[in-house]
């Protein structure tokens, strides 16, 4: 009977908490949205599946050995940890966790040795998270692949669209104000680092958001990544009403002059120009923009096609699988089911909306003062969300004027938005992360 009890106690049903059940449902919902509704499936399928795996009761796939030990609550182990962490013996797992988080590296090592000796091990998703995200590698590798898929031609043909990529980042910083405001009102409880990480959702760029939150607010990473990718998928629903409200029919009909031809050499030199500017002005953005420029240079230089091809296919796909599962590991119930998550979801959509509006408004301004006509609809593409936002601009343009093809014009602010939010990420990291 002892074995039967052991089997039952080790079953999921016997250990299921309501929160885990709820999170499994949320994971399945993400899968439904990704598969049935086409919400950024490349990321949300692995994230949703990882979320389900992370919440399997008793499997501890998302826990480190130390977290597993704290959840198992074996008295002897807790006792040993309490002594190491200098906490009262009867303080409970939460107090131990808090003391562990506050402890120094040497204490971490000592605690880890105790729990490994007690037979606890790191879960699979925890390992994936450590290698892919905690190290910073996966978002950077994805950014390299994105760089290798990006064509800066439209931006080079009309560099002024970089201003639109700047304008749309206002959503990021306005959201920071929102997050600290909600904290001051006592509704939420965010630090300035949390607020900065939440703001980056407004950058509409998944790897940037994941990179920044892994540095500034790892506990919020799950919610931030889910918000970022979900809202990117919702761009075709979020943006059009704002764009229509802020533009006149007349403005939406504006046809833009055809783009000049951009030479191969310009395309090769541009990533280097961008890299040098980053090096001189904002080193904190160098990992992100450096890898982005590296990917782009590999693509454009034409002499390393086999590397560029791998960066765009095998490497980015492998990294995406592990990045997604790793993000899913942060959907574990006791980290995700928190009022802060609701705050993040709310603030994230605000960020998108403000970014869209800023882009459109600055585009209107530029149209008024520029030499060439500029359709304000391409301003919204400055939030990035490549290439969805540019497609939205194109679609609304076609609605107003069936001969108005804005896609290539909108690709300029679209890739400018990627640069803009990476720059914003650099500022956040240097001002807040220091």
């Amino acid at each position, binding site marked *: 009977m002892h074995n039967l009890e052991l089997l039952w106690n080790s079953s999921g049903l016997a250990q299921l908490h309501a929160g885990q059940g709820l999170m499994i449902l949320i994971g399945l919902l993400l899968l439904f949205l990704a598969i049935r509704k086409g919400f950024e499936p490349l990321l949300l399928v692995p994230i949703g599946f990882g979320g389900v795996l992370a919440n399997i009761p008793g499997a501890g796939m998302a826990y480190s050995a130390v977290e597993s030990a704290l959840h198992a609550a074996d008295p002897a182990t807790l006792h040993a940890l309490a002594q190491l962490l200098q906490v009262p013996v009867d303080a409970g797992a939460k107090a131990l966790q808090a003391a562990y988080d506050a402890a120094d590296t040497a204490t971490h090592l000592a605690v880890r040795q105790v729990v490994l000796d007690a037979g606890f091990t790191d879960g699979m998703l925890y390992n994936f998270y450590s290698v892919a995200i905690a190290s910073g590698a996966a978002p950077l590798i994805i950014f390299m692949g994105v760089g290798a898929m990006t064509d800066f031609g439209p931006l080079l043909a009309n560099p002024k669209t970089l*201003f639109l990529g700047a304008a749309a980042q206002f959503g990021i910083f306005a959201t*920071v104000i929102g997050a600290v405001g909600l904290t001051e009102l006592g509704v939420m409880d965010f630090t*300035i680092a949390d607020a900065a990480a939440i703001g980056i959702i407004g950058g509409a760029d998944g790897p940037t958001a994941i990179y920044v939150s892994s540095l500034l607010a790892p506990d919020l990473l799950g919610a931030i990544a889910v918000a970022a990718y979900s809202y990117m998928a919702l761009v075709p629903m979020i943006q059009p009403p704002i764009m229509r409200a802020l533009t006149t029919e007349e403005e939406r009909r504006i046809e833009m002059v055809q783009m000049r031809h951009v030479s191969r050499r310009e395309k090769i030199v541009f990533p280097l120009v961008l890299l040098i*500017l980053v090096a001189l002005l904002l080193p904190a953005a160098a990992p992100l923009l450096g890898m982005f420029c590296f990917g782009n240079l590999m693509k454009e230089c034409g002499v390393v096609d086999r590397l560029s091809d791998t960066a765009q296919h095998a490497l980015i796909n492998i990294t995406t699988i592990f990045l997604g599962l790793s993000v899913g590991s942060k959907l574990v119930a006791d980290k995700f089911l928190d009022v802060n998550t609701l705050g993040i979801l709310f603030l994230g959509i605000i960020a998108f909306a403000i970014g869209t509006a800023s882009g459109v408004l600055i585009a209107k301004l530029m149209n008024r003062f520029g030499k060439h006509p500029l359709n304000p609809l391409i301003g919204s593409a400055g939030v990035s969300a490549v290439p969805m936002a540019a497609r939205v601009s194109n679609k609304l343009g076609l609605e107003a004027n069936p001969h108005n093809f804005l896609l290539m014009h909108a690709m300029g602010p679209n890739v400018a938005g990627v640069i803009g939010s990476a720059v914003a990420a650099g500022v956040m990291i240097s001002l807040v992360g220091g």
Partner: protein
Amino acid sequence: MQQDLLTQGFELLLYGMGTVVIFLCLLVLATAAMSKTIERFFPEATVPAAKPPAPRAAPAADDAELVAVITAAIRQHRQRG
């Protein structure tokens, strides 16, 4: 302390947005300068000449070699057969 947080937020807005705008302004200038420089001093050759781009001298050599090797292989094959 909470007052402090809001101040920090506004400072982040100010310096952050400022940096983004300044950085992208400089990038506009640098990009324009780069494009002008390339167009004036390092223009790409005219289209017909550009098709086989100048920097790659190797392929021509390779082709010659390839032809040579294939010829040699065929010769050997005939001699054997």
